[in-house]
């Protein structure tokens, strides 16, 4: 499924930060991981991913380092900085709140809130 650019602009960095929350990763690895999300919703072209990584690096949320992999090839690994971890925690909270609101509105399904009610209390 193709996500609109504006949505992707907000969700993409969070997704990347979350991926890196699991430990250092290199570019192709992240591309593959994002492509593997349901419906490929977070699948983004490399032409988008790498600039996004550079931006996060400029913002101080991640840092990069070259290291040699088992295959003897050099790879650039990205990992979260302390600021990145804080940022991820904050963003996760916000997204959870957003998701709850969406559930309330019936945009997102939930066993507790029937979509037909839309979560709106009279």
């Amino acid at each position, binding site marked *: 499924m193709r996500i609109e650019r504006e949505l992707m602009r907000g969700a993409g960095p969070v997704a990347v930060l979350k991926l890196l929350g699991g430990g250092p990763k290199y570019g192709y690895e992240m591309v593959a991981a994002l492509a593997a999300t349901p419906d490929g919703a977070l699948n983004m*072209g490399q*032409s988008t991913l790498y600039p996004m*990584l550079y931006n996060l690096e400029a913002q101080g949320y991640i840092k990069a380092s070259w290291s040699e992999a088992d295959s003897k090839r050099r790879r*650039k690994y990205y990992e979260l900085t302390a600021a990145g971890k804080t940022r991820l925690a904050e963003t996760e909270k916000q997204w959870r709140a957003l998701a709850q609101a969406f559930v309330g509105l019936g945009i997102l399904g939930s066993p507790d809130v029937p979509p037909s009610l839309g979560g709106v209390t009279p």
Partner: protein
Amino acid sequence: MSETAVPSSLQRAFPTFYRIARGWQLRPKPESVINESRLPETLKPIALQFASRTNWGMQSKTKLARLVLEYFNRQMAGGVTAEELSEQWSDAVPFPAVLKLNEPSLLTLYSLPKPIGELIVSVVRKTGLWRREQIDVTEELISHFEDGLADGQAESQLVSEFGDPSTAARLIRRAKLRNRSFLWQTYRRARQFVGLVIVMLIVCWCWLWVRFHAGKPNVTNDYIGERDAVVRAIPESDRAWPLYAQAITKCIDSASAYPFPAPLGADGKVLPEWEGLVELVDVQRVDGFVKQAWPISDKDLGAPPGTKNVQREYRMKMDAYSKALDELRQGTHWPALVQFAKMNQEAIDLALEGATKHQFGFLFRDPANEVWLKSLYQGAESSFEESTQSLLVNVLLPHVQALYSFNRLFLIECERAVESGDRKRAVKILSAYLSISEQLYHNDEFAVEKSVALNFSKRCWFLVRKILREQPQFFTNDDLRDLAHRIAAHRISTGLQIPVDSKKLYDDALQRLYTDDGHGNGHLTPAGTQLLIEQATITGLPVSSIAAKGMWKPSAWTAPVVAGMTVSRAELKQVFDHCVSLDERDASQPLWETNLYRTPSSLEYLRQITSTSSGRMKYGVLYSIYPFRDLGDSENQPFKPSSLVLGADSAKILCDATLVAIALELYHRRHEAWPRQLEQLTPDLLPTVPIDRFDGRPLKYKVVDGQPLVYSVGRNQVDDDGTVIDGTTDGYESRSGDWRLWPVTMGGH
């Protein structure tokens, strides 16, 4: 250069130079590196072509050739055939970052499938980043595609999933720039800001240029034409000017009688009998003559060193000029002057006849002007005609200057009449002075004409007092009564007031300088700018000094900007009106209620609004077209409303003094004694005692040593008991001391 080509002596003398030269000569070249290798012949041209395609230096090319060579050798050692390598590398193009890549990366880049290699090269090239950054991106992309290939992705899929190279390059560049240092970011912002400002300035300038050059003034009112139409409506028999023009022409026709140039003797000098005469008829020579005869310095005048009191100096010259006349009359030159007057009887009579007319009646645009202009001012007729099409304030008034010659001719003729006892002739000339003064005064609204008119009046008043002083019995009682009535009824002296220049002057300026949007607004035009620059040259000190300071002297490049920053037509009109109201307020104040040495309110206002650079830029134009006047010490601004107002009040004092002098003479004839106070003259000989315009009290009078003395407190507004303080004869127009009005000395006003 071969080894033997370098002389051994040079090797010894310049060992360093020799080593460098040898190194240069022996440095390996890519051709030799590749040709001397064991590479298959089919690959050598490809390797050489690759290394040679760059525009780098020889050393870099050689390094690149070695890298390629080594790579080919390894590949073939690993089982890759020369044909495969040839296929893969035939179109390979190095890019700037390649040399800085570490060897494995470089080799990997060119070992990647061609579409991927080209994609990487394309993206990295388009980023335009610094070399270090390009290397980083290149290596990361190499790594990325290697991972993709290792993951089993097809090269075509990897390329298509990567996205648009241009977009990628743009986004990568933007993100990488954000990673640069704060210093660089600041520099970049500053550069962008400066660039933006420059672009905006250029756009603004272009807009101003188009606006400026598209603007054209719309001259709707021809004030000279309108004025001439009024004059043409006056019957010719009522106009004085045709007679004056004839008189001028008669003078000029008689070349021997009107010596321009003066007749010279065999020794090349002016003939002795003409010397005084020449000086009298040529005002410029009068200056020189006076300066030569009575050198005047600031020290003599009591002025602080380095300062000038031009008005006083001028007055001194005029005093000296009158003295010269007296000396000439008594000396050897008087016969020449008499001869001159006799030879010009026809001209004098024509002028006297002109003085009997009610209207001056001068036409600016009249073909007949060419006749007298051509003979009087050679070559001036064309500029005069042009001036009537220019700014109204710049219209030349040659007729006024020409007429002024009769002021002097009448003087000689009056003296001659007194000498010969011809009372009627003397009275006629004195009356003619007043008539010409009235004609000129009411002719136009040019301040110059008002000023010259005042001079004619003053000459009359002076001569009356002078004759009364020198020959008290010359006039009969009836003559004196008639003269008194004539002077009292003088159409200037009864309502003596010098108005500020007509509003027409600046209305005319506005229509010639600005565009007209139909609602009274507009902006400065190229034609208007040109007029202003010319105006700055014409009007003398204030404008030229402003122009010299760069306040208002735009060049072709700056003119659109200056015009854009210059005050708009509507606002300028408001400022004009305000200045006029200030001038009128100044003029309406009696001298005794005002500080004579203050700056005129209009000029003070102008100084206030031009006190800043932007103010000068905006309102500097005002200096060019508004007749701002100083109080009288500015040497290049002789015609100033404020000083003219002062001059008018001064003239009023002289007029009153003349009436007092006549009344005193009549009283003396009746009682054979002088009155103790002026009140004794009223109401039989004088309606009231005149007011001293400087203190608002009656004119001062006392009898000293059996002789009457009438005086004004003068410009210092302090009664100095009739004492003249500075070096002038009667202290007239002096800033210090009193002004002695009666009796006048021989070389009086």
